[in-house]
């Protein structure tokens, strides 16, 4: 660099190797955290079990393949490509158990403020694993709501009725509910499952971790809206 002009990397050459290493590691940490919109590294309180993670990834892949085949897209279900340079996120949120009664159970899904504030949802799917008590058809009501942080008033409630006939995974599109949650800066989505009669925990197989309910969402970084004036 010309005399007297500060050159970002020349300064490094002048440092002692250990100091240089510390400076570079501090830069790497700061760069990664800022690109993830995190003030500090997260402290992980309850990491997901490997079994639940692998099952969820397999389910998402299977679902994407099925969707692609049914819509005539090539196997592998290409995800809609985004503008180059757009940062895209795949989010897996595993349910936290809420209150339950003989005919209903509540599940909570938490999304961080950083993600809710810096991304927009492209799609979101709720995955549930049914365990029916016997042959027949079991009507289930699924209610989605977004309690405010104090848990008092609830907004954005929506209701869906399903008829469950056999064990296995089922999916529900919750893209609109999660998008509305993100656009309000909310962080918690509550899913309530209610069955007509007392069949035990409403049909959910909540005993095995590998069948734990989860939401798989795809989001992209919000690009600042550009206003063009002519």
């Amino acid at each position, binding site marked *: *660099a*010309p005399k007297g*002009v500060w*050159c970002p*990397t*020349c300064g*490094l*050459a002048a440092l002692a190797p250990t100091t240089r290493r510390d400076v*570079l*590691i501090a*830069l*790497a*940490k700061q*760069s*990664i955290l800022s*690109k*993830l919109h*995190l003030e500090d*590294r*997260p*402290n*992980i*309180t*309850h*990491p*997901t079990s490997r079994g639940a*993670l692998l099952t969820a990834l397999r389910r998402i892949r299977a679902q994407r393949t099925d969707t692609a085949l049914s819509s005539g897209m090539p196997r592998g279900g290409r995800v809609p490509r985004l503008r180059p*340079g757009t*940062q*895209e*996120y*795949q*989010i*897996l*949120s*595993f349910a936290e158990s809420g209150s339950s009664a003989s005919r209903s159970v509540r599940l909570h899904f*938490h*999304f*961080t403020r*950083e*993600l809710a504030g810096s991304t927009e949802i492209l799609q979101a799917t709720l995955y549930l694993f049914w365990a029916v008590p016997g042959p027949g058809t079991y009507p289930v009501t699924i209610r989605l709501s977004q309690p405010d942080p104090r848990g008092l008033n609830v907004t954005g409630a929506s209701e869906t009725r399903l008829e469950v006939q056999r064990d296995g995974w089922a999916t529900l599109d919750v893209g609109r509910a999660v998008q509305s949650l993100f656009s309000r800066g909310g*962080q918690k989505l509550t899913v309530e499952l209610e069955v007509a009669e007392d069949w035990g925990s409403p049909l959910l197989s909540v005993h095995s971790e590998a069948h734990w309910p989860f939401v798989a969402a795809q989001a992209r970084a919000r690009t600042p809206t550009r206003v063009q004036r002519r």
Partner: protein
Amino acid sequence: SIDCSGDSRMCCRKEFFVDFKEIGWEDWIIQPEGYHMNYCAGLCPLHMAGIPGLAASFHTAVLNLIKANNADAAVDSCCVPTRRRPLSLLYYDRDSNIVKTDIPDMIVDACGCT
């Protein structure tokens, strides 16, 4: 582009690997195991200006001579990244959700003179 070796002073790419286990981040970053935080360093003499990396073609040699003889016409030149790629991360966020994202332009693959 060239990778810096020993005492090379010309514009080159310095490799630097940050091992997430060494910095205590392996509990929240599931994949990968580290970050190739390469950077560009070295001198860009005026006759090297505008050549991404050290091109060795005849055309470049001639161009270099022209530049070297018209040094006052050239402007400053800096050693900068000429090719970068995204860093793919699979990590836990504060709510223990699992997030996968590709952070664009995080890994320097090649350096050259502006």
